[in-house]
């Protein structure tokens, strides 16, 4: 399975939750498959999906799923100790690990070589970390959503992209629409 296939499988589970989605193709794919006011699309700033997601989870009560990538987590590895030490049980960090920088032409990442992001997350102090094959991602996410425990899921899939246009929505519209949805769900 490639990332867009993983996203298609988990959309029924995440559609009714707040989602912070990583820069580039992951956001374009999610936008294409299931655009929702509850989705925050990152149009830039590689690496910060987990940080934005954690800040959001700490600030309000609704569940938050940050969809990140292996390359993006590697560029902001300092996020994992912060996640581990600031426990938000309404936070799920889903790292779709295809071992490559998908948006830039599938150059290999170190996560596809010797580095295990699940092991790094555990070493950083994250208490609930699961690594699953792509086909088991939906089940792992379902368990995490039911568990009310901060969870890091590393979903190992293969690299590959589908061709999609960039997101044309203005960033302020994305942010405003998302904030109204956050407010509505918390009121």
């Amino acid at each position: 399975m490639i990332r867009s296939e993983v996203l298609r499988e988990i959309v029924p589970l995440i559609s009714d939750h707040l989602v912070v989605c990583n820069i580039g193709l992951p956001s374009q794919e999610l936008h294409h498959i299931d655009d929702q006011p509850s989705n925050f699309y990152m149009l830039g700033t590689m690496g910060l999906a987990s940080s934005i997601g954690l800040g959001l989870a700490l600030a309000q009560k609704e569940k938050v799923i940050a969809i990140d990538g292996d390359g993006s987590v590697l560029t902001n590895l300092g996020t994992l100790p912060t996640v581990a030490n600031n426990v938000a049980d309404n936070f799920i960090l889903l790292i779709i690990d295809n071992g490559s920088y998908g948006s830039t032409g599938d150059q290999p990442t170190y996560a596809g070589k010797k580095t295990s992001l699940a092991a790094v997350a555990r070493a950083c102090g994250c208490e609930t970390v699961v690594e699953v094959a792509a086909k088991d991602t939906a089940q792992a996410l379902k368990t995490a959503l039911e568990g009310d425990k901060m969870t890091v899921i590393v979903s190992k899939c293969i690299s590959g992209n589908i061709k999609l246009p960039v997101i044309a929505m203005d960033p302020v519209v994305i942010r405003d629409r998302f904030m109204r949805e956050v407010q509505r769900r918390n009121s």
Partner: protein
Amino acid sequence: MSIDEKIVADFVANRIEFVTTVPCKQLGGVIDQVERSPQIHHVPSNKEDEGMGLCAGAFMGGKRAAIIMQNTALGVTGNTLATLIQFYRIPLPMLISYRGELGEPIACQVEMAVHTKALLAQLHIPTYHFHRQEDVGEFDKILKYTYMCNKPVAILTDASFWGGY
């Protein structure tokens, strides 16, 4: 009221409930006050761009957020300021220790000090410079200004302001 207490009191008076910090010797006192404040959720971050991500998330979650950091970090936050904080129009007070100014004992700090205001100007970030202790009197107005204009706003605080360290 000490400068540290005044800064944190102004944060609280302006409903800033989420503060992330990356330490600097000059900022030790104010970081302690942030940590002690029952009204503020303090999340230390490992790097300032990460901290700005946390602030962006907290703001979208309904909490006003601020970052406390050193001026050297402007070197690593340019992209985040431009593509996250400014692009999505997220208000962000940045309380910054202005290392490398008069009284600085470490030569290397001067190397970023000489770029600090130029970088902020290039990024079109409203910038205030606290040099004398009474300058803290403007802090409350600067916070209100930040939430009026929905921009990142820098408050540079030098060694003279902090009374040496």
